[in-house]
């Protein structure tokens, strides 16, 4: 019986990592966008006199 001794191709390894990496990166990106809200200044009420002209 011949044994399969073929080395895994680098392209296959890369594809496997891309398959799990892309959804993970998408999730991290979404969370990063959400976490940016922490660094935004709190909404303050603008006095009528300094409100931009319409």
């Amino acid at each position: 019986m011949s044994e399969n001794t073929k080395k895994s191709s680098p392209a296959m390894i890369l594809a496997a990592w891309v398959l799990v990496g892309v959804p993970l990166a998408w999730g991290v990106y979404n969370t990063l966008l959400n976490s940016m809200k922490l660094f935004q200044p709190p909404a303050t009420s603008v006095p009528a006199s300094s409100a931009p002209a319409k």
Partner: protein
Amino acid sequence: MALLSFLDRERSIAHPGYSRWLVPPAALAIHLAIGQAYAFSVFKIPLSQLIGVSKPASGDWKQTQIAWIFSCAIVMLGLSAATFGKWLEGAGPRKAMFVSAVCFALGFYISYFGVISHQLWLLYSGYGFVGGIGLGLGYISPVSTLIKWFPDRPGLATGMAIMGFGGGAMIGAPLSIKLMAFYKSAGGVGVGKTFLTMGTIYFIFMMFGVFTIRVPRDGWKPEGWTAPAKHNAMITTHNVEVNTAFGTPQFWLLWVVLCTNVTAGIGIIEQASPMIQEFFKGAIGPVAAGGFVGLLSLFNMGGRFFWSSVSDYIGRKPTYFIFFVLGATLYFLLPKTGADHLNSIALFVGIAVVLISMYGGGFATIPAYLRDMFGTHHVSAIHGRLLTAWSTAGVLGPVLVNYLREYELAHGADKSSAYQTVLHVMAGLLVVGFVANLLVRPVAEKYWMQDGSVATAGSGGH
């Protein structure tokens, strides 16, 4: 059945030349999917408006009833990991991953029928019970395989997979929201079809893991790697059977280590949003607090990879010493960053993210610690039993935090100082964890397996 024989351990033994770098993506496919469980809260409001659609109507489920679906799933995670761990060691990771995928998807499908027929018990038994079994099996299924493929870096290998569980919520939350928005109509919130779609997507994604996972051949070791000549007493070269391990002091000390570390972490996670708003009244609103929660999840995930990788270099015991010494100090200091003391948001956030990274790190480093103590033979099964510490902490943490806070408020404390007591108790818990970690010693010879097996890299279990 001949078709299912593909799932057998013997059929998943890697051929010579199979790259071990294909194994972490296989593990990640499982953990990224089941990590969705931590995003279940996005379904709470839609499920409470199935009849009223735009707002809860008479006959709609209450959020407190819906919360039990997640609780049930987490309890089942711990129970199934503890119960089926030994079966997994014999059946192999591929079969366990397949059963996990079937259960997880089936949980969504049963829940779909629960939504369209408005039967809550179908969601408890679907997502909660059947899906929860999928969570437990999926969580532990790749652990021992990864450790066998990476005898030189077991912390890094298991950290990668367990990092995926943290990342799974980051994918699950926006995916669920987008699908519900897509399926939403004038007559429905779209949650039923979202369950069907997610069950299918996750099943296909997990199948990638099932088809890719391989166990190493007996005697396999990484190219150019030789086991360290210098013997480290804290890393065993023997194996301990799961039932025997259950009766050793080391198992229960590590149980306390995990339980205290997780309970303390939950103290932050549970109260993150209200705590930062109370500490910095006027400066931090609900939107910014939501951003803070997002930042915590990023560090929770990153900490899993970082700390477990660090543990490969400095050792498991010193890593947990860092968690407990640094953690207790930071929990003690955290209340001092509030508006009535140092008034530093940056310092508060900085401390909180370090603490949460160590919470994640505690989860990710424990499989390698178990390998060091008990060998590779039954490490998944032992890990499964140790996860009951997580289930315990999942109940203990929120109860402790909420009870202490309410007690303090009832006795005249203001909201900010009530948190101070909670955080100091968390620091105290970490001191308990420190003592447990200190007492961990190598497992006595009388507990070793007597079949002559030693923990070599490719020892493929039974």
